[in-house]
């Protein structure tokens, strides 16, 4: 996927930054046009949204909501990573273990995880534990499945090469199999990050209302659309920060591709 962009001309970072800002201005203009043309104040103007953001900030609600949500999100996502990567590696490393578990993993990942929320509430209550668990449950599957796939697809020719120089199982695993699986793991991390963020909002709506999801519900239900937009933009910003961080990590690890 990285090489596909390279067939096109590479633009400088400055050019890309400029065109991105240009596009942002275009979006703001469209937003503003929509806000004055759609009736009944359903779409707040950019300026009204900006003022709403200022109000939410000075009241401290925005920071509190952001902190609550990010705490839930990163805890759930972090636990998902700590479970999924070792488990996926183990499933890939020990064939029988992997073949035994994979069918259950696929079944669980095909089940809509929202279906578990009532059960989770019964077991863990409405507090942060339940929320973290819901986020973890969403993020864990894509990371696990991709890690497992990445370990299993290890290049048999490279493994044979390693055997021929006398490498043992452990060294083949740590030097050939695991590094070869990293691109898959990153794909899983990215999918997990997205699903985790969705589940953060879902959890905040379905359990004790809190965080950005909670604010979303409050302002949405009371038609305070300017505040509502502020929250939506905040969630988008979290998504961007997380996926961009993953992209930076990916580029670091994938330097050999250049």
């Amino acid at each position, binding site marked *: 996927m990285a090489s596909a962009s390279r067939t096109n001309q590479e633009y400088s970072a400055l050019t890309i930054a400029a065109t991105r800002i240009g596009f942002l201005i275009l979006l703001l203009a469209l937003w503003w046009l929509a806000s004055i043309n759609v009736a009944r104040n359903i779409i707040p103007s950019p300026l009204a949204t900006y003022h709403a953001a200022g109000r939410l900030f000075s009241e401290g609600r925005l920071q509190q909501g952001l902190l609550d949500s990010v705490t839930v999100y990163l805890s759930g996502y972090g636990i998902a990573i700590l479970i999924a990567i070792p488990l996926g590696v183990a499933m890939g490393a020990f064939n029988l273990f992997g073949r035994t578990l994979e069918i259950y993993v696929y079944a669980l990942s095909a089940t809509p995880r929202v279906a578990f929320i009532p059960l989770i509430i019964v077991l863990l209550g409405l507090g942060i534990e339940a929320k973290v668990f819901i986020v973890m449950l969403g993020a864990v599957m894509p990371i696990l499945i991709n890690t497992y796939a990445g370990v299993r697809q290890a290049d048999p*020719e*490279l493994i*044979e*090469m*390693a*055997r*021929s*120089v*006398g*490498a043992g199982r452990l*060294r083949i695993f740590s*030097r*050939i199999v695991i*590094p*070869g699986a990293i691109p898959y793991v990153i794909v899983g991390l990215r999918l997990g990050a997205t699903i985790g963020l969705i589940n953060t909002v879902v959890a905040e709506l379905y359990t004790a209302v809190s965080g950005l999801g909670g604010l979303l519900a409050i302002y949405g239900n009371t038609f305070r659309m300017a505040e509502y937009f502020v929250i939506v933009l905040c969630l988008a910003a979290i998504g961007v920060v997380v996926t961009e961080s993953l992209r930076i990590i990916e580029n670091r690890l994938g*330097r*050999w*591709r*250049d």
Partner: protein
Amino acid sequence: MTPLAAGTPIEHAGTANTAARAPQLVFDHVNKAFGRSDGSSALALADVSLSIDDHKFVAVIGPSGCGKTTLLRIANGLIAPDSGTVSVKGRPPVPGPDTGFVFQGFRLIPWATVLGNVEFALETLDLSASERRDRANTYLELVGLTRWATSYPGQLSGGMKQRVALARALAGEPQMLLMDEPFASLDAQTRELMQIELLHIWNRRKPTVLFVTHSVDEALLLADTVVLMSTGRILEVIDVPLARPRQLDAARSDQDFITLRNHLWNRIRDLVLTDPASAFFGRELNQ
């Protein structure tokens, strides 16, 4: 069409076992079949017997699928024969730095640097990190890649990748070097330079070489002995009576060379024409 020349009986290359030392590599009635997904099995090696002395350069030549790669993998101990025995210096072969393997298609680790790729082959040796680095650098210098030590394989040309693979196989200072169509994917120019380079390197320490190729000229330029294979069998083992250093241009007017070259050419052509798996099966290709 010339009828198939009757294969000379399998002669053990250098039966001079009077020498005190065991031959480097011995195949004794080796069989190997691979199971196919449809339940049948493909015979890759059929009753292969072969003995190769120390310091010999042996070329293996034969149509695709005749078992050449299988021969090398068994010689390295990467796979075991179904029956028969293989020994390297009198012992069953064990993969490791004592045998260097240059695979078809390089097989470089894409996320390791050129230096890292060579060092990887040295990790089973009892060397300190700095000794390992020095050794790897020595062999990178030998193949002329010092400048590229910190590059990644993806940044190299085919010829350079091949040289990394060669440096990796040589760095363990092996007794035996197994090379599987190492120059097949290179352009004619690079290939010729690599052949010369390989002979230079071989002359330094004279490891025993088992070199798989499709090219009769390459075999005759490089090898002391040419092994002709077809459908898992060794048909002929031929000594190449040309003095070293060899130059193909000069040899082309040598009568022995011409006879040998024509003989190999005709045999391989006939093998390909009578091989049901070949695209040329049954064709009348008379000059």
